[in-house]
């Protein structure tokens, strides 16, 4: 096993492989800046170039790009509230408020350091868990996956919306929208009304661009101030505003980084869980253990460290089921299997047995591309952060144009742009009436997972699916998210009433004593 690990890294000693890795990373970072071109699209774009390539070169090219693309998306999520992919919406929660305070460079520094670490951590997880993977995966059945998806949607909606009811509505709306289109379970086309453009449902990029990027541009243009508001441009060079401060923030909170990296890697190991759940759970976890949970959503660095560390660790984790069983751990990994087949490898137990050096080469490539992309990102952050001080008249039209074209690219249909514009208007109203656009997005992202697993659970287990021990525990946890704040408030009010009552009785007793005296 150790030999294979070293053989894997030795394969990277070839200068041509390193050149392909660099080219892949540059492509990845550039594509990461363009909304709609996430890891999936990046892999799809680069696959035609892989024909006839040496396996090591081909892998270096696509994994260099794949590892770097998520960091590009994080930068745009932080600086312009334009997440590169739907799941990166979590990074906007605290990243964007930091940018609004003039701390965009620092936030990018936090993201870069956390991403680099997350990538490395994910790879360590690959090294450790490949032998244990089979046992872990078999624990998660459809009822458990359904319950986890539900927990993710509920928790994000409740955290982000103004009231619990609005949080539930936001998540449910996202789910309802995700049900539009072809249902792979039954083969029925739902809510399309004969429109073939909606056969594949609404595009996630179109919805995300509408709800976040375009809405934000409407907001800053209507206000007439730059993204960073009235803060001075020179702030990005002062202490507390620099990229270096962001990196130091992460070093100081290394425990949180490790814990969230673990959450991300664990989510990656479970097929079909996706990055959305990993990022959300780590955000919730970071908030729950923070000494200042109230500042989450207002620019707390821990709100970036958690999701970013988890998101990149997830990629390493998702390699485990992909390579050991041929089950893609994420949508990106589904395409990566195709790329491996092009290069002559068939993921599965045979690959682990016969090409263990290639398995570890893949893990090393993901780690290295994450690390180098983060260094490049740190170098570019001050320059990128200056964009947030531009007038809204200058920044809004190009970003809206890019967002709408990104919406088109995903669906390859003009209706993608129309969907983005419709959701921009809907999102503007929902955002300002207390609903959670993030909850809606997560509901939409996790909708197919929830639909498929709830359907299979009901078929296979009936209603007793919800009584399975792990499922029940997760569902109780989800219910407690709604009830816990109310119970806490009720206890606090009761304690206050009791204290007031006791004070009253003590005062009464004192007055009695006084009278007696």
């Amino acid at each position, binding site marked *: 096993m150790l030999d294979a690990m070293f053989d894997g890294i030795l394969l990277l000693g070839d200068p041509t492989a390193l050149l392909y890795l660099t080219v892949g990373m540059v492509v990845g970072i550039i594509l990461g800046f363009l909304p709609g071109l996430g890891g999936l699209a990046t892999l799809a774009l680069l696959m035609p170039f892989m024909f006839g390539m040496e396996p090591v070169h081909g892998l270096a090219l696509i994994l260099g790009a794949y590892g770097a693309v998520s960091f590009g998306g994080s930068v745009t999520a932080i600086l312009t509230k334009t997440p590169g992919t739907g799941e990166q919406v979590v990074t906007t929660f605290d990243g964007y408020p930091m940018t609004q305070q003039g701390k965009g460079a620092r936030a990018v520094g936090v993201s870069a350091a956390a991403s680099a670490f997350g990538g490395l951590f994910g790879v360590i997880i690959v090294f450790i868990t490949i032998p244990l993977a089979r046992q872990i995966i078999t624990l998660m059945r459809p009822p458990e996956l359904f319950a986890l998806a539900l927990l993710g949607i509920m928790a994000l909606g409740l955290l982000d919306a103004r009231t619990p009811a609005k949080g539930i509505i936001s998540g449910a709306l996202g789910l309802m929208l995700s049900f539009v289109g072809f249902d792979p379970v039954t083969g029925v086309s739902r809510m399309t009304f004969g429109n073939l453009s909606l056969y594949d449902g609404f595009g996630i990029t179109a919805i995300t661009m509408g709800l976040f990027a375009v809405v934000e541009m*409407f*907001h800053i243009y209507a206000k007439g101030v730059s993204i960073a508001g009235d803060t001075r441009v020179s702030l990005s060079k002062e202490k507390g505003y620099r990229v270096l401060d962001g990196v130091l923030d992460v070093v100081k909170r290394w425990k949180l980084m490790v814990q969230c990296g673990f959450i991300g890697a664990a989510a990656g190991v479970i097929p079909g869980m996706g990055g959305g759940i990993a990022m959300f759970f780590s955000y919730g976890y970071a908030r729950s253990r923070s000494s200042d949970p109230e500042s989450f*959503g207002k620019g707390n660095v821990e709100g970036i460290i958690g999701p970013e560390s988890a998101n990149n660790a997830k990629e390493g984790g998702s390699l485990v089921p992909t390579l050991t069983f041929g089950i893609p751990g994420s949508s990106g990994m589904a395409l990566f299997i195709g790329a491996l087949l092009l290069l002559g490898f068939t993921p599965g137990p045979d690959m682990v047995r016969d090409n263990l050096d290639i398995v570890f080469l893949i893990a090393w490539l993901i780690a290295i591309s994450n690390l180098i992309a983060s260094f490049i990102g740190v170098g570019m952050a001050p320059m990128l952060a200056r964009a947030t001080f531009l007038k809204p008249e200058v920044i809004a039209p190009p970003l809206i144009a890019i967002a709408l074209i990104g919406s088109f*690219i995903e669906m390859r249909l003009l209706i993608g742009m129309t969907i983005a514009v419709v959701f921009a208007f809907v999102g503007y109203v929902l955002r300002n009436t207390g609903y959670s656009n993030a909850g809606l997005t997560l509901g939409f992202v996790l909708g197919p997972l929830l639909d498929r697993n709830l359907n299979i659970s009901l078929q296979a287990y009936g209603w007793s699916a919800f009584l399975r021990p792990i499922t029940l525990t997760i569902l109780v946890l989800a219910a407690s998210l709604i009830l816990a704040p109310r119970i806490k408030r009720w206890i606090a009010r009761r304690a206050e009433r009791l204290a007031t009552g006791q004070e009253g009785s003590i005062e009464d007793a004192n007055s009695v004593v006084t009278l007696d005296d």
Partner: protein
Amino acid sequence: MTDRRVELIVGGVLLVAGLAYIGVMSTYPYRARIVPIIVTVVMLGAVVWDLVSTAMTGRKRQGGGEDGQPQDGKNVSGGTAVDDREFVDVFRGESGRRLAFIAGWTVLFLLAVRAFGFAPAAGIWTLVFFLLNRVRLVTAVITSAVIGLGTYALLELLLNIPATDGFLFDAVASVSEAAATVRSQ
């Protein structure tokens, strides 16, 4: 119009939309409709709960009770906290005019794409926005050229999607083709 009334209207729209959604979903086979219907019923329950609590909050406020502020000072969608009057105020005065302008520009951008194709629309429409907002001419021309050329490179060269196909250019091409045919005859 107050924010509370807007919230009640949005709640009402969601209620009607949810009922319509259930109505359409119920026409599909059992396995295709069961999950969407469960989700919609949960949403409708939450909408009713929200409508009742919003209405009650307003009544309490009128009676000098609670102020109806967001619970625990929560943010909305990770953005700025919306105070009780801010949203309706956005539509008034200068901010309302600016919001209407950018919304109109965005909708017309869709039409521009159909008319000119992606790359010319991205360039021309961005330039129009800049000029109407009195952005410096050099900045406006350079930025819109970069956007237009970037769109062309991305779509036409990288993704093999026609970036200059629009009905206006198609019409011009058809007219010139017809003219050439007439001339040759």
